[in-house]
């Protein structure tokens, strides 16, 4: 698809807005529909669109394998780490109320971090799965 100018221009215009919308879904999930999972999927779809139009090589340059693997692990670790932080500050595992002096503020911080972990893990895991599958296809580029 590398020589189709309409697709290339439209993708370049769309990708920033897709990523911005994903960030909105991520950080507005406390107040409206959405959350870490949906945000991660939308963020991943931005990169998948980019990879489909410009090829896997460019997409891998933008999002190297090392970044994806570290991000995947960090997502789960952030989530589990918030639970451990709750234990260290005197609560039970995944009890966010003790993370701050105020109960509700603690809940807010905990949910924010947990959703961040979910979003990061989902985004990097889905892009990894797509890149690996698409890498099997000779037209898009070599394997991951």
């Amino acid at each position, binding site marked *: 698809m590398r020589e189709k100018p309409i697709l290339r221009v439209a993708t370049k215009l769309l990708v920033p807005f897709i990523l911005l919308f994903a960030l909105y879904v991520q950080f507005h999930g406390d107040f409206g*529909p959405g959350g870490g999972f949906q945000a991660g*999927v939308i963020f991943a779809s931005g990169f998948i669109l980019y990879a489909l139009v410009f090829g896997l090589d460019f997409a891998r340059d933008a999002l190297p394998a090392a970044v994806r693997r570290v991000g995947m692990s960090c997502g789960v670790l952030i989530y*589990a780490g918030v639970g451990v932080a709750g234990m260290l500050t005197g609560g039970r595992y995944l009890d966010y109320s003790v993370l701050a002096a105020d109960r509700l503020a603690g809940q807010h911080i*905990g*949910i924010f971090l*947990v959703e961040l972990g979910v979003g990061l893990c989902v985004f990097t895991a889905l892009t990894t799965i797509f890149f*690996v*599958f698409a890498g099997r296809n000779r037209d898009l580029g070599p394997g991951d």
Partner: protein
Amino acid sequence: MIELIDVALLCMMAVSALAVLWLRNLFAVAMLAGSYSLMAATLYVVLDAVDVAFTEAAVGAGISTVLMLGALTLVPHEEKPSGRHALSGLVVTVGLGALLIYATLDMPSFGDAGAPVHRHVANRYIEDSAAEVGLPNVVTSVLASYRGYDTLGETTVIFTAAIGVLAVLGWGGRPGRRRPPADGETRP
């Protein structure tokens, strides 16, 4: 009016599901499966479950369709006719379907306020989550705080899925296989 939308959406979903069964063109099947998910997402919006609809539209209609298309680039585009119709398969499917329909007769009717699902913890979430968690979106409160363990498990499942794909289809860049950009191609 809402009933009309429901019936129209369900009819369209049934038609696409049947078309998926009948069609031999796998590209059309992948596209129909995607549109089936999109209609399911619309149905969830009608049911006021916007968070679920969001996920269904993003995962079911978006990512799964792309993954199916990715798989389609590796296989022929036409399904081979099997040439025979297994009668035992039909019997098992019809029997299982009848059993499931029989089981739904025991379920409380749709929207019944006395149903167990509305009497268990749902009231506590709706009434107390503003004081206990303080988020306007109760769904986020339930998913991230009340049901934090479940969501941690789901995140681990996604992580495990990616690790599994990497383990089966190969880790790390194989040096030398990387193709240089074609001549004259500008980097975006």
